[in-house]
């Protein structure tokens, strides 16, 4: 972060604070968008065109979110939370079925994936709720769980296991970052560990099958295991330098399944190789770091939780998505932020990152080091993520 004498504009300032934008974060976002578009261009022209319109729509939204004072969201949080539940219920009632799951609703003629929008809304709501509490005790934990579980369960039963995992880790991450008692956290984790054996019974048929196939992909080389095997072949075919952009045959010829969405990383890794793969992982790591820094310099607890939650969301999605592409985690459909084709996810991710910029833009006018201290002292029990 450049140590630059800040203008004497205080927090809550307008667009003039653009000078203090987190430039590194913006550049990483731009780089990821370019890499994503390049990969989509290589594997599917229609997806590329559609994603391009998403980017064209998303960049102004990113800028608008950065300009918008995030603190004005806090009072609206209950309504946003209500909207999130409404959207998720709408899917249950009138959703389109795709890949054996209901994920889309049509709003004003446009297909929207409500779980992606809900992700953003629930983060704002939970952050706003926690920000109002100085300390987090058992009461808060229960209340937060009460707020977080309905959307999580609604998503899980769509069924969208991937987004449910994101919600769950967001919930846990916020509790952890907001300073919930360690005993309580340990209790929650123990509860999850106990609930894990029940998971197969809660999962839909195809989800359960995917879990089994993850454990042994050769079990069903034609069906679900095919995805895993083909993704692994594509990644492995990339080698160190990759087959070159537009030359990844596994991806181009369609052997990689869902090659514009869930398995876009396999296509990318085949074309750009280990170097490209490490670059992508590096970019995402720095992005998570920048979000953590944004949290650290946040002028208030709400901003802190908002950025920290954004970091948790991006981190979870990246690890789960790349993990399933390389066979480290079970297949649970989840997009790779800014890379996978999908305009709902792209727009909500860009708004989220724009809000983090909004937090950075409104940080206190002190040196970085001092700002970190301020954040610490303001919230008392907060442990910094970085």
């Amino acid at each position, binding site marked *: 972060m450049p140590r630059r004498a800040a203008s004497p504009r205080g927090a809550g300032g307008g667009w003039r604070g653009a000078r203090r934008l987190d430039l590194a974060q913006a550049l990483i976002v731009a780089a990821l968008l370019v890499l994503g578009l390049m990969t989509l261009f290589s594997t599917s022209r229609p997806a590329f065109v559609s994603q391009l319109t998403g980017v064209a729509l998303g960049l102004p939204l990113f800028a608008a979110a950065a300009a918008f004072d995030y603190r004005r969201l806090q009072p609206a949080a209950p309504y946003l939370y209500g909207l999130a539940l409404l959207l998720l219920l709408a899917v249950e009632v009138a959703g389109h079925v795709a890949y054996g799951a209901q994920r889309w609703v049509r709003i004003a003629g446009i297909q929207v994936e409500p779980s992606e929008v809900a992700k953003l809304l629930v983060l704002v709501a939970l952050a706003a709720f926690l920000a109002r509490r100085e300390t987090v005790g058992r009461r808060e934990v229960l209340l937060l769980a009460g707020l977080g579980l309905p959307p999580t369960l609604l998503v899980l039963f769509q069924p969208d296991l991937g987004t449910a995992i994101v919600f769950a880790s967001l919930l846990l991450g916020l509790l952890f970052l907001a300073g919930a008692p360690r005993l309580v956290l340990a209790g929650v984790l123990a509860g999850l560990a106990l609930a894990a054996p029940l998971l197969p019974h809660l999962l839909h048929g195809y989800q359960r099958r995917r879990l089994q196939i993850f454990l042994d992909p050769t079990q069903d*080389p034609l069906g679900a295991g095919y995805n895993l095997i083909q993704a692994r*072949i594509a990644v*492995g075919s990339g080698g160190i330098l990759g087959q070159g952009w537009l030359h990844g045959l596994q991806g181009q*010829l369609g052997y990689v399944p869902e090659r514009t969405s869930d398995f876009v990383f396999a296509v990318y890794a085949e074309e750009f*190789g280990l170097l490209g793969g490490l670059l992508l992982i590096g970019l995402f790591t720095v992005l*998570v770091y920048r979000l*953590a820094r944004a949290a650290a310099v946040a002028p208030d607890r709400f901003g802190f939780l908002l950025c920290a939650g954004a*970091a948790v969301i991006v981190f979870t999605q990246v690890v789960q998505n790349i993990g399933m592409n390389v066979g480290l985690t079970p297949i649970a459909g989840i997009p790779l932020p800014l890379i996978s084709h999908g305009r709902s996810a792209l727009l909500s991710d860009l708004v989220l990152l724009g809000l983090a910029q909004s937090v950075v833009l409104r940080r206190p006018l002190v040196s970085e080091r001092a700002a970190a201290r301020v954040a610490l002292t303001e919230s008392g029990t907060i442990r910094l993520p970085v």
Partner: protein
Amino acid sequence: MAGGLIVLLAVSALAVRLVQLQVGQHGRLAAMGVETRVHRLVLEADRGVVYDRHGLQLAGNAPAWALRVLPAALPADAVRRQAELAEVARVSGVAEPTLGALLAKAPDLYLPVTVKTGLTAEQAQAISERLPELTGFELDRTPVRTYADWPDFGHVLGYTNRLNAEEYARLKTLGYLPDETAGKAGVEAGLESLLRGRNGWADLETSAAGLAVRTVAQDPASPGDSVYLSIDAALQQAVGQYLRDALKSAGVRAGAAIVVDPRDGELLALVSAPSYDPNQFTAGISSAAYQRLLQDPSKPLYDRALAGLYPPGSTFKMITAAAGLQEGRIAADSVLPCPASIAYGGWTYRNWAGYDMGPMNLEKAIAVSCDTFFYRVADSVGDMALARYARAFGYGTAPTIEIPGAQAGLVPDEDWQAAQCQASGAPGCRWNPGETLTMGIGQSALLTSPLIQAMYVSAVANGGTLLQPTVVSQVRAPGGQVINSAHAAPVGAVPISPANLEVVREGMRQCLQAPYGTGFLFRNDRFQYDGGCKTGSAQFGGSGTDLPLHAWFTFFSPYANPEIAIVVLVEGGGEGHDTAEPVAVKIADYYYSHRAQIRAA
């Protein structure tokens, strides 16, 4: 801090895994990638065409379609896959469980599985309309073998069929594919190596949907050679017709007829009745139809001309005569009686005629087929010498011919009997000298096939050369150039002096042309061609009198430089002059009235 640690750990795990896949397993995974993407397609060679001696097509390749499926390209979703298979079952008529079994058996997901072959243009059209929705399925043009739609060609042409597991195990070193089609009988089997051609291959890069994107490398197939048979298709049909008519009027089921050129061993007609239609095999014969063929009491799949074994009866007498002359046991001008029977070793051996036919020389004895005359000749020659001469005329050896299945028959003598006795261990078992007598008239344990007979008659006709029979006159490469039109070298020369053989030939001439000849006596039409013949009425089914008879007739013509020899056998047909001879007479009539066409180059 803890959060940072979690992030670092997770990111490091991803990076390590990426190195593992892209560096450590790169070679293996990239190879798997090529394997899934590039598929070797075998380009099956067009099978060589079979023509008759004039270039009339007898076996060829008709366009047909095969429905195949690439298992890897089927929808991954089980419900959609099931729906697709149900639809395929509906349009192709292949039952769904059969389809499922075919797919379950597929050894490689990226090798096409043949669902159905021999689809007609209409069937293929109906399927192709549905094809866009049936991912993974494709229609292939694969020619189906078709045969001239005439009766009586089945045994000569044979048929092709898919290899069974056991045949594949035997042939895979020759580059055969598991479900490749190969000749199973007739010249299709005998000339398999010429007709098959050489398969090629193409390495195709395909998309996951099974669509070929480009050809990486290929080696085109070369078609098989064309085979021009020595068979004259029209003559073959006429021979078949005459034989079947004769069988019908005699009330019997089976027989065989052969027309051979005694100068070079080329067979002009080769008929075994009843026959079968080879076309029913190529489209995949149903097991019910195959069982019907197998269980038909008249055994239509059994090639009697090559594999049928019968006692030769009186047609053997030329060998007895030649042996007697050559061994010096009888002279051309020796005159012996022809009583109604003779007594020998306590048994009575009868002549076919129940009266004394008077003294006669050897020529007349052949012409009138006097059994008692030949009993004496055989007795004086002895069984060992007689057997030796029989073997010199081709008896006891399976003729080499381009059709598999020719049988050797049997030539009995004391040595053979000794071996039999040793095997059976029966007390008092030994060669009965009386067997020598009956062997002299073509009975005893003698067995011959119509083909052996044809080559034997040819040897008598052509002055003593035992030829190798052939049904092939020419082999041509796919480009049309003649590769081979040479005939195999003769098997050997019979050890009979020309003068002695001439006596035998004269006996056959008298049989055909002298008023007392058995071939003249019973003939009731105006047969104006010269030559020689011998009738035979071979007892079978035991020993004694009043046994059923196989009817034989052997014939050659013209007398001076014979150009055809004919053998006719009617199983259980009674007297040779009665049922077999009329067939041969009609064949000879047909031959001479169509000689120009048959002999046209």
